[in-house]
């Protein structure tokens, strides 16, 4: 028993050391960039690292920006665990959010039931968008990676049209739909920040996905299909189902992310409000290595870097885009096996 425990702890420690190294390299990148680009590197760095923690407001906003990343990260993780790629997060969030907004307004008389229905409808629409890519792969082996990307790009444009056209709220000069009724808006957690109780729903989603993947028959079958689909098929698992279902669920989670962004933060579908959320969700899943439990720290880390860069831009003389550079460096490092194995000399053959 004790031996068993040691076996588990050691790799965890090694992995921890690897992650620490990545964080250290990322931090040195921030320092280097500040020294090169800023006239006042000390101030820039101070705001970069402490800015997001400086006040309830900044901290709340950072947490809030992590929420759609958590949903997106979960969605991508789920698809990747089943061996599918979902590159359509952008369109799925945006489309899901629009449907959620419209349904909420339409179902308003139904009260809480209406809200749930609206969330479900929005998420299902997003799920259907992704599921269609899964269907194409199942049916004709069309690369779901490419189709989900193409569909998403087309959907973005159609949603743009719907928001700016038929569903435009004429009473505002924003290009946006009408706002959802006040009663449906999630309550704020750290006012005046944007953080809302959507955070709890994100945590619930993490737990649900974790339980689904690791504690249920369907989740087990999904993972088996992803690890080795020939084995899964041989074992009697309906592998075709696990091309479509995980893609659907992946889109569904993205759509929920969009829905909760509406319920918690934006209250209306504003044109292009979700730009970048889908890609960042993908990034979070990759950092988390598709483990639902790791999606939370990954999303927080991602949100922290963005919030830090924004804070440094607000208060000092650097541009926001240094966030992209730091994130990309983290990306470069995060998946490199060598970093993990620096701490364990012996490597397994591939």
């Amino acid at each position: 028993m004790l031996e068993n425990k040691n076996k588990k702890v050691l790799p965890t420690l090694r992995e921890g050391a690897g992650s620490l190294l990545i964080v250290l390299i990322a931090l040195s990148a921030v320092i280097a960039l500040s020294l090169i680009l800023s006239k006042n590197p000390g101030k820039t760095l101070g705001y970069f690292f402490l800015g997001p923690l400086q006040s309830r407001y900044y901290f709340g906003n950072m947490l809030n920006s992590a929420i759609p990343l958590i949903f997106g990260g979960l969605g991508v993780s789920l698809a990747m665990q089943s061996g599918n790629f979902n590159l359509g997060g952008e369109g799925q969030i945006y489309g899901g959010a629009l449907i959620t907004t419209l349904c909420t307004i339409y179902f308003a008389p139904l009260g809480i039931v209406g809200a749930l229905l609206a969330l479900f409808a929005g998420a299902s629409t997003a799920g259907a968008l992704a599921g269609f890519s899964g269907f194409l792969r199942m049916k004709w082996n069309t690369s779901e990676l490419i189709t989900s990307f193409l569909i998403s790009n087309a959907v973005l444009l159609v949603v743009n049209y719907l928001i700016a056209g038929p569903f435009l709220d004429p009473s505002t000069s924003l290009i946006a739909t009408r706002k959802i009724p006040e009663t449906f808006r999630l309550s704020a957690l750290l006012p005046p920040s944007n953080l809302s109780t959507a955070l709890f729903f994100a945590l619930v989603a993490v737990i649900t996905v974790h339980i689904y993947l690791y504690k249920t028959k369907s989740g087990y079958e999904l993972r088996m299909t992803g690890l080795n689909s020939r084995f899964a098929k041989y074992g009697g698992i309906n592998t075709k189902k696990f091309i479509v279902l995980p893609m659907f669920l992946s889109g569904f989670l993205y759509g929920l992310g969009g829905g909760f962004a509406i319920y918690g933060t934006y209250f209306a579908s504003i044109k292009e409000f979700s730009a970048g959320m889908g890609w960042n969700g993908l990034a979070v899943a990759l950092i988390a290595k598709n483990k639902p439990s790791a999606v939370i720290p990954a999303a927080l880390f991602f949100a922290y870097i963005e919030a830090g860069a924004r804070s440094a831009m607000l208060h000092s003389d650097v541009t926001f885009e240094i966030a992209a550079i730091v994130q990309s460096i983290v990306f470069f490092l995060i998946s490199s096996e060598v970093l993990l194995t620096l701490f364990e000399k012996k490597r397994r053959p591939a």
Partner: protein
Amino acid sequence: MKKIICTALLMAVILFLAVAAGSVEKETTDTHSLSILVYITGVTAGSPPYTALAEGATEFASENQNVTVKIYEAGFNQAQWEEQLTSLVATGEYDLVLGSNPSLPEICVSIGKKFPNQKFVITDAFMEGNPQIRTYLYNQYEQSLFLGYLAGLVTTSNMSHANKDLKIGFIAAQEYPLLNKHMVPGFLDGARMVNPNIEVDFRVIGNWFDANKAADLATSMKNAGVDVFAAIAGGASQGLFKVAKEQGAYIVFHNTNEYKSAPGYVVGSGSMEQKKLTKEILKDALGGNIEYGIASIVGAQEGYLRFIADDPAYTNNLPDSIRVKFDAFMEDIYKGKIAYTLPAL
């Protein structure tokens, strides 16, 4: 399990830090000086109104010692504007937020609820009745009208690149209400004052940066018979300049002097006197003379919209016959003699 504990610990530490940091509130700044935040809803580069806004404020600050200016470029994502602006206002460092965008007043209303002492002056926007907000709306219909009139004159002329088709073009990065309801109709109405059979070919790029797509669109429009273009396309306008230079087409440009962008082809530039307006606003603000809650519409008559006729390019690029007609038209515009009904937004 280990991971979950680590995560929980990390979150706890961050929360603690946040609460600790949050308790230290910033002190408010001295009232004798004026601290201005210029909130750019986009980026300044490639966007003349924003450049003018920023320059006006910076120049004003350099002329007045007790005025400080922070220029903040918020990027194109509308949905992030409110969050960003709130966080800027939350610092309490700024006496006045200056911005220029039709959708800003709305955002300011909701931010104003959280920070009731914050004042906003927004140009290029219209909102009445909020005691924290003062707005100035440029009469873009009017500018489009006179640029359209010029375009009409050019397309019906026998200038070397003008053709027989009664077609003028308008390239937009994206569609939005002010564009759809004031600018494009104004442009068409102006052109039809020359010849009622003129049509506008209106096309959309889809974003503010794909200059190559803008070039492709312009080529396609030129092939469809367009010989005079207008564009509200941000950085993507570069594509239009390229096509005009290479294939021969005329451009009338909104808001800023762009004669040099395609020498010989930009036949007219409107001017939005954003810098002038900015300085006047700031002067009033320093003197405490701004009446909040009021909205005004400013145009050529008030001196905030102008046609740039004093650039040698204007004289060189257009034949006398056209200039005579157009100068007379502009004279009437400045005097308010041209009758039109401003469409509702």
